[in-house]
């Protein structure tokens, strides 16, 4: 045991003596390891977040078109709306006993880039964005009154917009913010939701009636243009919705609805199951992730090569040191072990710093993902890559040490004990 401690002592001293090259090789290992862990970790978490069960709905019913567009538009509040469907379709769904929950969405307005979604109070009273968890208004807030011009803000939207309870704002027409498209209606913030770490955090919810009555909005629920009049009730046949968010009583219903709406029907599209629709998107862009992963593997290989090169180059100047060690009784394999340990130590140090690099990349990436989608990625979520990558990198570093170690192993003692002058 004593001997091993001493070997590490020699290794540590040698690393310090070659501090600059140690630092550079360590940093390159850190960069490579951090990149690999970040690319794989972020990918795994994003795929899980976008395709997994944290969505709360099983399917989206919307206008005939791309299911992916429908899902992106309604679940993740990205992309444009493919069009509207009549209110009657929402009612049919709502009354269908096989449907556990049907929530209408009406889209088309924003406030400084944050989407305004018109919906009903069901979203707050029945919808569970995670099993057993409903939207909660933060202290003092409440959900909107469907007959008033009131708004409930997602947590992230409220924070970014600086809106608080009691503040007023006016919506802008369109999904993209345009100064000239301001509506005249004023809305009052009556609630700010607790953070959900989901896309809903970026949404401004208002009563669906509000969307219908927004000045300049034309309803075409029955194919004819209709403009809501103040004080008059809007007949159901004129109403329309951008999408109906659905939760089924059991998975088989999705099969049946998929057949009746998508295969036999012509007017609407049922995006189901939502996870699978998103998974197909990730399959399509999977190559991009592969390239990123490949690049980070390459960085590791180059870093491994730099361990090899930097130690190999130092062997010549250290021949005398090895000869002295041998003259003190060190065996050839001890000298070999010193060099291999040195390479492994650089790799291990690099791996430790790699976690810092991972943290930095992850934090930056998750800030972007959050700003774009509202989804919050968890820095500390464990993934096998946090074990596999370090082990592989340390192994690679150790192997990289073998070449210079062989050179050191071959050092001739007698000829290297006297300095060459």
């Amino acid at each position, binding site marked *: 045991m004593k001997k091993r401690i001493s070997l590490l002592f020699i290794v540590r*001293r040698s690393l310090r003596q070659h501090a600059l090259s140690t630092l550079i090789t360590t940093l390159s290992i850190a960069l490579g390891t951090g990149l690999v862990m970040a690319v794989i970790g972020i990918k795994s978490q994003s795929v899980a977040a976008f395709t997994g069960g944290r969505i709360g709905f099983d399917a989206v019913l919307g206008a005939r078109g791309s299911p992916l567009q429908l899902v992106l538009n309604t679940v993740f509040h990205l992309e444009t709306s493919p069009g509207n469907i009549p209110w009657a379709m929402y009612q049919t769904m709502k009354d269908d006993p096989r449907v556990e929950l049907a929530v209408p969405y009406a889209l088309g307005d924003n406030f400084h880039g944050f989407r305004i979604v018109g919906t009903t109070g069901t979203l707050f009273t029945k919808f569970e964005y995670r099993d057993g968890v409903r939207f909660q208004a933060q202290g003092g807030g409440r959900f909107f009154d469907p007959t008033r011009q009131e708004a409930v803000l997602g947590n992230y939207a409220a924070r970014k917009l600086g809106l608080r309870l009691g503040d007023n704002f006016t919506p802008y027409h369109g999904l993209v913010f345009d100064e000239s498209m301001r509506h005249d209606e004023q809305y009052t913030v009556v609630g700010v939701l607790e953070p959900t770490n989901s896309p809903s955090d970026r949404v401004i919810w208002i009563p669906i009636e509000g969307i219908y009555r927004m000045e300049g909005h034309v309803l075409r629920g029955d194919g004819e243009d209709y403009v809501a009049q103040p004080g008059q009730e809007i007949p159901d046949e004129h109403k329309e919705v951008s999408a109906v968010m659905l939760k089924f009583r059991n998975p088989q219903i999705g099969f049946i609805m998929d057949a009746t709406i998508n295969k036999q029907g012509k007017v609407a599209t049922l995006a189901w199951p939502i996870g699978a629709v998103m998974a197909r998107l990730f399959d399509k862009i999977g190559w991009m992730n592969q390239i990123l992963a490949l690049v980070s593997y390459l960085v590791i290989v180059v870093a491994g090569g730099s361990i090899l090169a930097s130690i190999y180059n130092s062997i010549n100047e250290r021949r005398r040191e090895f000869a002295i*060690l*041998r003259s003190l*009784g*060190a*065996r050839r394999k001890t000298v070999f072990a010193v060099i291999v340990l040195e390479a492994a130590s650089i790799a291990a140090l690099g791996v430790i710093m790699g976690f810092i690099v991972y943290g930095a990349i992850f934090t930056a990436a998750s800030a972007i993902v959050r700003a774009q989608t509202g989804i919050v990625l968890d820095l500390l979520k464990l993934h096998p890559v946090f074990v596999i990558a370090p082990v592989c990198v340390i192994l690679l570093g150790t192997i990289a040490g073998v070449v210079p170690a062989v050179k050191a192993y071959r050092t001739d003692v007698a000829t290297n*004990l006297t300095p060459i002058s």
Partner: protein
Amino acid sequence: MPLLTITDLQKAYVSPEGSQTHIIDIPHFEMEEGSQIALRGTSGVGKTTFLNLIAGILGADSGRIIIADEEMTALSESGRDRLRAIHIGYIFQTFNLFAGYTALENVMLGMMFGKGIDAGFAQHLLERVGLGDRMGYRPSQLSVGQQQRVAVARAVANRPHLVLADEPTGNLDRHHANEAIALIREICAENNAGLLTVSHDEEILGQFEEATDFAQVNRA
């Protein structure tokens, strides 16, 4: 029982042209336990090769070297390394200290491959050679004479039976050389180690009771 017995030791070098040069041919050489022997020889007569053979750094072509009852020449390279670590201390003309290590660490490295590290003994040795206040200094921060004293302390750090000194004062001025050789002799005696010195310096050789011509030992 003798500390060191050498019989029919042969060593030849093969030149790049392929011709063999016999450099060592020693029929018999013996050293008693704790004795101090000086060998006289100019450079190029195989003195260093002789010491390297005894230390097991070089393998002999033929013949036997027996140190403290163990036959160096019968062992593999790693076996010779082990024997050297346990039984032999080596003092070089160029000191061969580790530049990146302090005086104390240099002495401790001398213990590392043998009987184990004893920091207290290492400190004691440095105090003994007058470097008690220089233990944390690196070789570059020490004078040449001080560096040699660190090397002397290191040579006996592992309580060896035999200390080999190869022109131990070659890099020192006259005054320091005389001091150094006296110190080496004292330290070896104190630690019950035999001392085998090779030098071409008559004044150094004169300090020993007896100095033998290396040419008388080596027939090559």
